[in-house]
Structure formats: structure tokens, C-alpha cells
């Protein structure tokens, strides 16, 4: 062999474990041959990213044994990534939480309690907080991985029952800026089109997204489009880092972190300078606006605002790796193609200027009329499987009610109160704490009882250390509902074991407005229960504790329902039939019966069953595709932008100046730090870290360093380096690679080991509009601390 044993050991030194103490790595007992011998295949949706891949779970003797893609599904056409193929392996994992666990003080060991005791404890904990400190001392923090029914029933009990809008979720950390961008540019949240445009596009502009790893199956479609049409289709990849996504790009525009606002303004400059805009589209559908007061201006003012973004100036601002001609070429490809599709993700959203960055992408589409036609769309990719369906649509953020309604509008609150049959005025008019404010309020003991569902903020928050201290305080009663121990369950008083995907029934809504059902296929282990049951039972006890019948009224329609199927269906029916009626996400046609009959679910709006059975609305706002474009039409034009946020029913082109990151490098901290996902892992690895194949594929975080920076710092491949910011420090192996732009390092964020948890280093500054934190940029310094070192992969256990 050309690799000797000695070479092999040397190469693996930096990536090897000293021991497996504390690790649990059961190897799958179900190989391929057993898998295809399944007793039945149950069709559902992938549990992991926001792509919404449809898959089937193979079940044998009541146990999950395999997953395979659904070829007819219009999301993935049968393809799955490794996470989608393998997540069934965690369902029988010995680390599953199977009994309610409680401890009064957080330095005590957990003890098992019955469900009745657990729900009493949860009810008393929240009731005591309300009695002593008021309703706003309680909070719910959910997830874009909860099913819609779960988010909906939780927020209903919190708002209508406990009378607080302290309802948040981790989508605030990943896509709030996309929401802000869609609302302010198009007047309505969520994309106009969807994946259907990939195969019709001739120019694909991928910015701030390493979709090859974060959304691999959607990337496959983009890759296929390019490989099948190498000369006809242009791919532009704009990112400070060359990533696996860049492999299919005709042009990679590598800009200095945070300067993409200048880059996109420069593209707009070229579009105006070379008259590449679509004048008729602008005349028919658009206005120009500026400032907080949304002042309307004309196109000349817009043009004047771009004068400082000539391609030459922008190329310099962007760091010198892009030429002015690159910018001109990109603008021409974008404007002139038969259909241009933009796709982006956290590189745009997780920014202090996240909403503005979104606006500037939309600007390019509005100016060129690259919307509402085949292949043309401005498509924000979603990170989580139900951030759109559950949290954005189901009322999972502090300022929105279900059905895209703003909390602050009395008329909209009253609509929801009437639908729920509770007294008007019951939902408070003031929005609750947004995510970063919520955990700051925990630190400040303004929140005394918090329910954290299906997420791990003790690892996933930026600048996580001070927020962990708050959660660890005995002054705050913390309830966690989850399937595995996490860094957050380490801060809990009460852990409630929940049923996992395919162990209960519910709906996920993915990136492209598509709702898809996943039915129960196997029993949950031990005493794990679906969240909808947990909330119903908790609310009944809470009503007694607080002597408040309105709390009980919130769950009254769901009493007596069997928890696995009947109960979620009753919740879904109330939400869709009563609450989405007439809203832009009208889902009345997407009943469980309809969703179960579909290979791939329904795209809203879908007001009737007949329409839902066609698959729903492929292109929003377009007559002939979107039924609401007919019913809400204000004239005879083919496109009707009826979104609730724009009274003028126009698309808005925004004048947005370039503003840099909240924390730029300086003499003390001379490098940019950015972070991101790796293909084999999902979020905090509480799930994927328990699949041996996935853990082994990337057992640790590492940091990518540009070779020029590495040479200056004396760092060689696999050396251990320290990454330090004003907030914290971590250490991990270095990968010296032509990935990040010179002056920037890039670290993977999945690792939950205390020494390598990169969110200790990130900054918690946030966008003033969307309140989404700037995970993607902060200043740091890096120094070599040793040569390659044996490391230990780490997944937390119940006792940490």
C-alpha cells in the first residue's frame, strides 16, 4: 500500500480520540438487506433541514429499519442526503429520554417522576411565577423542528391562557431577517415561487449559502441543472469563503465579510447604468422607498443613491478579490437571463444588516422583473424543517399570531380570540421578548419560568456563556421537552421525554410554502409522549392552579382525543379551518386526508380541497397559479401583489446603504470569524452525533484558515489553534485551505465539547429590525498552541 501504517497514524493524529469514555456508539444492527425486508414503508418528511425531502420509513417488527426517498416528490425526487438516510438510527438509541425527570435544585441529580407528578410540577412552577411576578415572567422557547400542531397549541396556551406573548423560537436565530426582507420588499412573508424554478432557470445567484452542505438535496437539483446545461446556465456563487458549493459556479465572487451590501448595490448600479432594468415591470408593480418612514422616492433618487457604488469602488470595498468587470458580468448575467433564481441562507440572514441584505437581493429581482415567471424567483432557503410552517405561519414568534397576523393589531388579535372562543382582550397587545431579549430577561430574573421545547439554546445562542449562566440559576424554573440529553437539559429542573418524528403525527412546512404530513409509524420508547398531549394535560392542571377557566378553554376542543393521531388532527383542523381562513397562508384545503393522499404535500395558499389536491400554489401572486391572485385582484394585470404588509399592493425597491458588521477586525482582534454547518451534522449534534457514520465523518469542529494567514501565524495543517474574541475562547484543529478569504477564518459550529463550542466566541449583536443575531461575523484572533493533538468526540449524557 502507498500509505504505510505509520503514515496513517500520523495523518489521523489530530482527528483521533484518546478514549471513548462517556461516549455511546452503538453500531447499526440493521443493514441494507434487512432494511428492504421491511414489513411496511410509511411515507413522511425528513426530520432535518428545511428542504422538505419526502421519504419513507421502513418498519420491521415495529422498529424503524431504513429510510428511502420518494421518487414522485417534487421536493427531492427520491434523493436523500446521508442525514436523511440515517436518522432512523437514533430512534432506538439507548440515550433516548424515556421517563420524566425532575430535580428541585440544578446541582442535584435528576430523579424519575410519573407523568402526573411531572405535569403537576410544570403547572405549579409556571403558576407560581405568574402569581409572584406576573404573566410576563413566563416564557416559551420553541423550535423550527416542532410540528406545526405543537407550536400552535403551545402559543395558544401561552397567549390565550397565560396572557403573555413571550413566545419565541430558534427560527429567530436563522430566518427572522428573511421574514423582514420579504415583508418589506414584497409585502408578504415567504417566497413567491419555489424549487420548481431550479429546472427553469438560466442564471442562479447563490449568495451567503453553502447549500452543498446545508441543503444537499436541493443543491443536487442546482448541480444537475448546471451539469445538464453547462453552456446555457450560469451559476454565480458570492461568498467570502470558497465552499463545496463553489464547485459548480461559473463565477465565484469572494468578498470581504459584510461587504455584500456594497456588492449588490454595485450590481444594481450596473443594471441602471446599462439600462438592464425592466421598465414595464417597474411601472406596473413597483415603487422606490427610503428610510424608517418608508418615504416614496423616484427612480432618479434611487440612481443617485447608488453613485457611490460604482463597480470600481465596490470592488475595492469588497476586498480586492473581485474586479469591477466581475461585478458588471454578474449583473448582466442576472438581468439578461430568461429566468434568474437567487438562493441564500444564513450568510445573508445572520447579520446585523440581515433585513437590508435581503432587501438588496429582492431589489435586483424587482428591477429586472426576474419574478413571477418560470425560472425567476428570490428564494430564501430555510434552515429547519418547520421554521416556515410552524413558527412563521403558526405564530411561533413574539410579535406574530398564527396566520401571519401581527400581535400589535387589535383587529387581528380579535380575529384569533374569536376563533379560539376566548374573551376579546385576552391576548395582550404588547409583543413579548424576542429571543436575545428573552434570554437576557432570564439573566436578569425577569423571566422566572421558561419552557424550552426541542432545541438547545445553551449551545446554539451566540456569545452563549452568559446566557448559560442565567439558565443555570436556581431562580429560574426550566422545563425541557426533548428526546435526548443536551447542553440545555443540563440547565433544566424538569425534563419531559417526547415522541420523535414518525412516533407521532404532524405537519412540517418547508422552504417553499409546502405543508407535508408525517404520520405515526412506530411507538415512542418508554414513556415518551407527543408534545400536543403534554401541553393539553399541562394546561388543564395550570387552569386549576391559577383558577382560570380560560386556560382550560384553550384546550377544550382537544379533550378526549387520542394523542398520536386524533389530537394533532384536531389541532391542525382548528388552525387551518378557523385561523388561516382568508389569510395569505390559507390552508383550509390541506386537511389531513388531503395531505395523506399526496406524494409531497400542498403549497399554500390552498383554500379548497379541490385546489389542494392539485398540489396548491406553485407561484404566488400570479393569476392562473394562485387562486388568491383572482379573489383579491385590484385590477386586470397578470400579477397581483396582495400581501398584507403593503397597503399599496406594490413591490418596494429599497434605498439601503452599505453598512459593515457590528464588530470589524482591529489591531487586537485582526481576523474575521465566520461559522457554519457541515454536511454530516445537524445543529448541535444531539441527534447526528449519535449516528456512528455521521459522527465519524466529522467527529470534531475544525477551523479553516487561509494559507497566507496560516503562513503568517506559523500554523500547519492539523495544528491545534486557539480562537479568541472579546467574549470567549475555544481551541480546535486547523485546516489550512483556500476556503476563507485572506483575513478570515471559518469554524464549524456543531461540536458540543466545552473546549470547541464556537458560539462562546460569536457575537450577540442583532439586526435592529429582525432581531436576528450576527452569528456570521465577528472579530477574533488566532494563535497556534500546539502541533496535532489527540481529541475526544463528545456528546453530552444525562449527567453531563
Amino acid at each position, binding site marked *: 500500500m502507498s500509505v504505510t501504517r505509520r503514515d496513517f497514524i500520523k495523518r489521523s493524529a489530530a482527528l483521533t480520540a484518546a478514549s*471513548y469514555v462517556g461516549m455511546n456508539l452503538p453500531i447499526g444492527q440493521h443493514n441494507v*438487506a434487512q432494511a428492504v425486508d421491511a414489513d411496511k414503508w410509511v411515507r413522511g418528511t425528513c426530520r432535518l433541514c428545511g428542504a422538505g425531502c419526502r421519504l419513507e420509513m421502513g418498519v420491521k417488527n415495529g422498529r424503524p429499519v431504513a429510510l428511502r426517498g420518494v421518487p414522485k416528490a417534487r421536493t427531492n425526487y427520491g434523493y436523500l442526503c446521508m442525514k436523511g438516510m440515517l436518522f432512523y438510527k437514533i430512534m432506538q438509541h439507548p440515550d433516548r429520554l424515556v421517563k420524566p425527570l425532575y430535580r428541585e435544585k440544578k446541582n442535584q441529580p435528576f430523579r424519575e417522576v410519573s407523568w402526573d407528578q411531572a405535569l403537576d410540577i410544570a403547572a405549579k412552577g409556571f403558576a407560581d411565577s405568574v402569581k409572584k411576578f406576573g404573566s410576563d415572567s413566563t416564557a416559551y422557547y420553541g423550535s423550527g423542528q416542532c410540528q406545526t400542531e405543537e407550536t400552535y397549541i403551545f402559543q395558544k396556551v401561552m397567549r390565550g391562557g397565560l396572557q403573555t406573548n413571550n413566545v419565541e423560537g430558534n427560527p429567530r436565530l436563522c430566518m427572522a431577517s428573511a421574514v423582514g426582507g420579504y415583508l418589506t420588499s414584497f409585502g408578504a412573508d415567504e417566497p413567491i415561487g419555489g424549487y420548481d424554478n431550479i429546472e427553469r432557470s438560466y442564471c442562479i445567484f447563490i449568495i451567503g449559502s453553502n447549500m452543498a452542505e446545508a441543503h444537499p438535496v436541493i443543491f443536487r437539483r442546482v448541480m444537475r441543472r448546471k451539469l445538464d446545461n453547462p453552456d446555457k446556465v450560469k451559476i454565480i456563487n458570492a461568498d467570502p469563503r470558497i465552499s463545496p458549493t463553489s464547485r*459548480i459556479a461559473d463565477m465565484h465572487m469572494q468578498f470581504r465579510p459584510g461587504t455584500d451590501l456594497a456588492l449588490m448595490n454595485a450590481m444594481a448600479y450596473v443594471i441602471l447604468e446599462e439600462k438592464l432594468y425592466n421598465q414595464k415591470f417597474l411601472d406596473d408593480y413597483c415603487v422606490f422607498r427610503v428610510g424608517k418612514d418608508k418615504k416614496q422616492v423616484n427612480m432618479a433618487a434611487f440612481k443617485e443613491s447608488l453613485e457611490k457604488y460604482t463597480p470600481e469602488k465596490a470592488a475595492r470595498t469588497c476586498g480586492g478579490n473581485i474586479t469591477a468587470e466581475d461585478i458588471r458580468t454578474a449583473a448582466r448575467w442576472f438581468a439578461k437571463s430568461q429566468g434568474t433564481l437567487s438562493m441564500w441562507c444564513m450568510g445573508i440572514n445572520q447579520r446585523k444588516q440581515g433585513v437590508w441584505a435581503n432587501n438588496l437581493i429582492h431589489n435586483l429581482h424587482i428591477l429586472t422583473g426576474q419574478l413571477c415567471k418560470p425560472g425567476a424567483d428570490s428564494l430564501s432557503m430555510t434552515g429547519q424543517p418547520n421554521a416556515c410552517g410552524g413558527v412563521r405561519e403558526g405564530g411561533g414568534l413574539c410579535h406574530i399570531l398564527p396566520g401571519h397576523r401581527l400581535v400589535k393589531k387589535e383587529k387581528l388579535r380579535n380575529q384569533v380570540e374569536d376563533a379560539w372562543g376566548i374573551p376579546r382582550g385576552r391576548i395582550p397587545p404588547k409583543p413579548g421578548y424576542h429571543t436575545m431579549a428573552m434570554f437576557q430577561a432570564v439573566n436578569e430574573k425577569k423571566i422566572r419560568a421558561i419552557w424550552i421545547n426541542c432545541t438547545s439554546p445553551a449551545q446554539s445562542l451566540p456569545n452563549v456563556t452568559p446566557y448559560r449562566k442565567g439558565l443555570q440559576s436556581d431562580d429560574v424554573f426550566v422545563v425541557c421537552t426533548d428526546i435526548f440529553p443536551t447542553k440545555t437539559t443540563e440547565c433544566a429542573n424538569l425534563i419531559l421525554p417526547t415522541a420523535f418524528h414518525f412516533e407521532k403525527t404532524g405537519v412540517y412546512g418547508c422552504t417553499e410554502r409546502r405543508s407535508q404530513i408525517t404520520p405515526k409509524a412506530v411507538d415512542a420508547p418508554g414513556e415518551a409522549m407527543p408534545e400536543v398531549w403534554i401541553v393539553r394535560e399541562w394546561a388543564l392542571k395550570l387552569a386549576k392552579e391559577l383558577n382560570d377557566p380560560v386556560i382550560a378553554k384553550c384546550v377544550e376542543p382537544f379533550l378526549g382525543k387520542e394523542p398520536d393521531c386524533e389530537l394533532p388532527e384536531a389541532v391542525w383542523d382548528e388552525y387551518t379551518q378557523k385561523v388561516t381562513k382568508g389569510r395569505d397562508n390559507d390552508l383550509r384545503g390541506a386537511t389531513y386526508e388531503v395531505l395523506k393522499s399526496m406524494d409531497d404535500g400542498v403549497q399554500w395558499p390552498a383554500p379548497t380541497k379541490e385546489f389542494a389536491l392539485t398540489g396548491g400554489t406553485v407561484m404566488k401572486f400570479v393569476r392562473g397559479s394562485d387562486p388568491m391572485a383572482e379573489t383579491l385582484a385590484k385590477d386586470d394585470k397578470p400579477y397581483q401583489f396582495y400581501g398584507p404588509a403593503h397597503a399599496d399592493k406594490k413591490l418596494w425597491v429599497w434605498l439601503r446603504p452599505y453598512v459593515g458588521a457590528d464588530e470589524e477586525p482591529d489591531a487586537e482582534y485582526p481576523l474575521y470569524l465566520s461559522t457554519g454547518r457541515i454536511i454530516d451534522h445537524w445543529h448541535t449534534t444531539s441527534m447526528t452525533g449519535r449516528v456512528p457514520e455521521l459522527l465519524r*465523518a466529522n467527529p470534531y469542529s475544525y477551523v479553516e484558515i487561509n494559507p497566507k494567514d496560516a503562513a503568517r501565524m506559523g500554523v500547519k495543517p492539523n495544528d491545534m489553534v486557539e480562537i479568541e474574541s472579546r467574549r470567549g475562547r475555544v481551541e480546535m484543529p486547523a485546516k489550512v485551505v483556500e476556503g476563507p478569504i485572506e483575513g478570515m477564518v471559518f469554524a464549524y459550529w456543531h461540536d458540543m465539547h466545552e473546549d470547541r463550542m464556537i458560539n462562546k466566541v460569536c457575537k450577540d449583536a442583532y439586526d435592529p429590525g429582525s432581531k436576528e443575531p450576527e452569528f456570521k461575523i465577528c472579530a477574533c484572533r488566532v494563535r497556534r498552541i500546539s502541533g496535532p493533538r*489527540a481529541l475526544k468526540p463528545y456528546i453530552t449524557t444525562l449527567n453531563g
Partner: protein
Amino acid sequence: MKKLISVLFLLALVAGLTACNAALNGQAKQIVTPPQAVLADHPTLTEQEKLLPCFECHKDVTPEIYSDWYNSAHGIANVKCYQCHGTFEELTKVPAVDSCSFCHAAEMEHADTTPCWACHLTHKFTGHQK
């Protein structure tokens, strides 16, 4: 030495192909072939060494295979070694054809009883080799 390894690999692959039987089952054609036993000729790895991605060694040990994969649609789309060949405890030189069906159920409709790689170039999977 590299050529010898490649030749051995190809011989093993051919042997694997001749062992394939076909059957239909459910949604797609699924060729039920028990995967080969765990590779006897692979160096024994410690638990620590198993944390290294396959390609870290195989780009040197089997560079042609690595290159074919890296430049294929599988390589560009990050379909990794373990997704077809399994992880160490279940490692197979010639995967069970069933494993293709997890993503390629529709494509396997035209496969009749023939394994995919009998026609599509192994690791490249572009076009047909005959």
C-alpha cells in the same frame, strides 16, 4: 502497488457483480443481494483511527477511484463513501444494489436485473461503459 490494489479491487467488484440476484419488492425494483462480508483485506483500524474519513487515505491508496468519485455527480453532491459502502463494521467492497434504491428508486426501474454499475461507470456513474 497502486495498480495492483486497483486490479484487486476490480476483481473483487466483478466477483461481487456475478453474485448479484434480482428481485422486485414494493415501490421499486430492489435487487436483494446480501452485502459482502466485512473486508478481510482492509487494514484493521482502532476506534480512534475509524474517525478519519475514508478519502483521507484512499486518495493515496486508490487515487483513480478517489479521482473518479471526486469528479462525479456523487463527488460534487457530497455523496460520501460510507453512504454506499457502509461504515467499518458493515464495510463492503461491492455495495448491495439495494443501497442505490434509497435515492435512485425511479432510475432502477429500467435496470431489469442488472446492477447499476454493470452499465454506469463505477464511481463515475456517468454514461454507460458499454
